[in-house]
Structures are given as structure tokens and as C-alpha cells.
């Protein structure tokens, strides 16, 4: 089963929930798809066994074959190619690696070379396999790194996916293929607003969802009302407790120090599993 943890708003506890679920289960892998700011490894301190660079194919021009007809530049929707009468300029950071310029070039003057944009690391933390991606600083496109992280999904394991914040393309790529999406939300106006956007996204992609209320007790009751009116199940509440916040600040998953929570995360997971199997 693939369970993704998303939230819309940043800092609502996605990583805390993902890590604690992973620590409460057996035969599990955790994929950190927040490749711009991965954090799960900070809580799990894995022993890294494999490091893979992530490349994006970008065009390279054989100037001796090029007659500067401009077809590649006309084709490129990303504006990554500029053709002057003497030279072709490639703006690699803008290229999404679609490969279209190679196809449209009538002189076969374009080939592709690999450009590194990030790294995927794989390791173990106790019984949890952790896979996480890291986008190189200054690179704009995280999606290809997320795709590489997701290639590590193993069917015989339970896969937990820690998603990036927001509601746009990196989130879509991360949740794609999930059996269920758990939304970590805080009961505040910001939390509710961004949760609603995520619920819309999940409807559009057809993935069922439920909510974990994090920092329960702060804010107001509007999030609860919204979930009730829209028949979205609240599957767990994590109270706002100084102890939990302090443990998190030190990079310690709170189930390690508050073991009664292991049961709660197991129950949460079993409940989700039942729903998926129905």
C-alpha cells in the first residue's frame, strides 16, 4: 500500500506524521519527496547505503551541423533555446527535458547531455528504509528528483510518502499513484484554507483522503466543522503539547519517547488500510 502525507500549508506536521507512522510499522519504507527542503532524514538519522545523482537531459548543439533555422526555439515552450544568426544559446535551467528540440531539428544537430540537478539517497534507520531526494540549491525544478525518489517504491513494502508543501506540480507528482492521502492540518484559519485547496486537488486526482489534526487545541473549531460538512474523516488528533514541540525541535520523533503513541499510529494505519481494501 502507498500512503502519502500532504497538507497544503507548510509546517503543519507532515514530516512528523510520516516519520512516526513509519516507525510504528513493520516492513516499511519512507520516501521523502520534499526535495526542496527534505527533513525526514534529520529525524531518522539513516545509515546511507546508496547515493544516486539525478540528471535531466538537456540539449547540446553541434554548431557545425546547425544552420540556425530556429525550429528548435520556435518549438520550445519553456523558452530554453535562443537562436541567433550565428549561435544557439541553451538556457539549461529553463529546460524541462522534454526532448522535442531533438525531434524537430531538421539537421540532426541536437543531441542530449545529462545535467545534474539533485541527488537521491537511500539508507536504513532501524527497520525503516528511508529514500530521500535533494534538489541542488539554485535548481528550479524538483519534479524530476521526486520521480527518481518514487522509482524506489517496492511493492512488497508499505510505502509512506512525505509530500512537499503547496498544492502545485511537486505535490501532484508526489501523491500520484497513492492509495490514500492523509492530510496533516492545523486547526487555524491558515490551516483550514490550505486544507480546502488540497481536498480539491485530491478530488481532481481521485485519491481518497482523511485528516490528522496536528496541534489540536490551538485555533478554532472551523476545521472540524468543515470536515464534518464535507464528510472528511478526522482519523487522529495530535494535541498541542510543549513536550512534542520540544522533541521535534531536537529532531526526535515523539513516538520514541512517548511509546503509547505507537499504538495510535498503528490503529490509524490499520483504519486507512481497511478503507483502502474496501
Amino acid at each position: 500500500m502507498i500512503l502519502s502525507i500532504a497538507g497544503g500549508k507548510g509546517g503543519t506536521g507532515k514530516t512528523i506524521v510520516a516519520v512516526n507512522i513509519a516507525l510504528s510499522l513493520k516492513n516499511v519504507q519512507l520516501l521523502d519527496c520534499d526535495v526542496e527542503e527534505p527533513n525526514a532524514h534529520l529525524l531518522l538519522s539513516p545509515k546511507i547505503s546508496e547515493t544516486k545523482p539525478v540528471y535531466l537531459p538537456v540539449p547540446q548543439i553541434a554548431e557545425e551541423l546547425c544552420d540556425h533555422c530556429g525550429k528548435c526555439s520556435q518549438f520550445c515552450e519553456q523558452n530554453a533555446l535562443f537562436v541567433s544568426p550565428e549561435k544557439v544559446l541553451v538556457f539549461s535551467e529553463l529546460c524541462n527535458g522534454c526532448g522535442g528540440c531533438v525531434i524537430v531539428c531538421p539537421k540532426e544537430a541536437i543531441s542530449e547531455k545529462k545535467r545534474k540537478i539533485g541527488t537521491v539517497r537511500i539508507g536504513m534507520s532501524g527497520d525503516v528504509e528511508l529514500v530521500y531526494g535533494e534538489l541542488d540549491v539554485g535548481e528550479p525544478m524538483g519534479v524530476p528528483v521526486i520521480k527518481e525518489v518514487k522509482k524506489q517504491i517496492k511493492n512488497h513494502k508499505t510505502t509512506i510518502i512525505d509530500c512537499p508543501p503547496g498544492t502545485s506540480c511537486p505535490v501532484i507528482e508526489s501523491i500520484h499513484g497513492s492509495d490514500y492521502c492523509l492530510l496533516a492540518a492545523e486547526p487555524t484559519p491558515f490551516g483550514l484554507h490550505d486544507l480546502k485547496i488540497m481536498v480539491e486537488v485530491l478530488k481532481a486526482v481521485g485519491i481518497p483522503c482523511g485528516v490528522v489534526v496536528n496541534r489540536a487545541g490551538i485555533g478554532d473549531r472551523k476545521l472540524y466543522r468543515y470536515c464534518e460538512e464535507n464528510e472528511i474523516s478526522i482519523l487522529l488528533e495530535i494535541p498541542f503539547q510543549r513536550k512534542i514541540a520540544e522533541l521535534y525541535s531536537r529532531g526526535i520523533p515523539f513516538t520514541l519517547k512517548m511509546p503509547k503513541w505507537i499504538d495510535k499510529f498503528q490503529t490509524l494505519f490499520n483504519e486507512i488500510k481497511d478503507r483502502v481494501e474496501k
Partner: protein
Amino acid sequence: MKQITILSGKGGTGKTTLTASFAALARNIVVVDCDVDAPDLHLLLHPQIMKTQQFVGPKLAVIDKTKCVECGLCREACRFDAIDDTLEVDSLLCEGCGVCVVVCPEEAISLKKRISGQAYISKTRYGTMSHARLTPGEANSGKLVTLVRHNARRIAEKENRGLILIDGPPGIGCPLIASVTGVDVGFVVTEPTVSGIHDLQRALQLLEHFHIQPFVCVNMYDINTENTEKIIEFCEENSVKVAGKIPFDQIVTEAMVNGKTVVEHSPRSVVSRGIENVWEKLLSFLNEE
């Protein structure tokens, strides 16, 4: 005209809370929300929309089923897995690159324009606001950010405003890069957690990469004072200036529930004084630049 972007790397460190309070304390500004896929600033500033603009995002491939011979070449050529086994285009995965159009032997595929969001120009009690809403799930938030910033500059010129105050998105990818390029100061809001420190470091690397002056503030510093010290030491070692620290207080959430900025809701609180102090420092830092 100067520009400041509030960023953090990690989400939930208090970017929007601080931006809103800064807007309340500032004079002569245009305020901007560049977190276009999960915008929250409007929940505190209650903008009255004056102008709405359609945002044309990446194009979308459309297959004309009357011409399609189901050869599957488009599916093979698509590097974004946006065409499935039944030769349907998944609009959320399609990047609008047009490779399918050029490989189709039947000329059955075309690219069409799609509206991926709206940009707004609004009135708020603290000045004009430029903001937007990306359609949930859409791509190219960076381009929408660029549009929002372009609108902000036009307003600032027209209204003769001296400062553009930008609430940035989390992360360090395309929407954040679009939010910080060309600004005078990148104001980084961090929190004293292991994750906060890690993300601060990446955010600072990003600012350095784009040659933008950083200025750091530790929010909720009393959650872990040891980590706060570590952050301040780290900044000193790397010659990054620190604006100050702001304590954790539930009144921040209370203010949010009431739809107000903290400095309006509890002007005499320690948090508000901390924010005022940081704002003063930020202004003098900006003027030194």
C-alpha cells in the same frame, strides 16, 4: 524602489504572520503574496479585489479522437507520462511541451491554451496588494509569481511607493526563485528546530547563489533556546546578520483566528514588541544596502 522578500525554506515558521504585521507597521508600501498555490496573507489583510487577470499557464495537449489511429507514438514520446494506455491526456501531468504534437503522424494532436489561475490587484487597509491564486494542482507557479511581482512593480511606480513587501512561498524551487530574483533583501524567518536550521542553511545558500543580501530572524525562539543560540552562532560565523528573535505565543494564533495581524490584535504583547523591533532593524538594514 526597494523590494524585500520574506522566505524560510521550511513551511510554517511564520512568514505570513510576520509579513502581515510588517505591512501594518510599514508606510508607503505595496504588499505582495507570492505563495500562489497556498496563499494565506489575504486571511489577515482582507483584500478587496479591484482587478482580476487570467493567468495563462502551460498549454495542454488535446487529442482529436476522430483523427487518432491509436498508434501510441505520442504515449511513447511523452517523457512526463501524461498519456495513458487508453490515449487519454492527464491534464495534471501534461507539461504542454508539444512533443506529442510533432510525433503524431495523423496531426491529431494540438496544444491549447489553459487558464491556470488568476492574478489580483486589491485594496487593503495597509495599501495596494498584488496576489494570485493558482488553480489547485496546476504547474508553473513560478510564472504566476513573476506576473504578481510585475503587477506589484507597476503599482509601486504608479502610486509612488518606496517599498515592495513580498511574502514568499516555502521551499527553494521555482516559485521561491521567482520570488527572490532581483530583490534587495531576503528576510529569512527560521525556527529553532533541527529542520528549521537545516532549511535555513539551504535558504541562505540559495540567496548567496542569486547574490541577494540575507537577513535572519528566529521566530518562536523559546521553543528551544539552545538551538536559537546555534542559529545565531552559525549566522555570525557566516557573516549573516540577525535581525532578532521573537518568542512563541498563542496570541499569534488568536490574532489569526480574529483575522488580524498580531500587532493590531495585541499591540502591547511581547511578541508585537519583538516584531516591531525586528521591523525597525530590517528597515535600517535595507537603507544601509
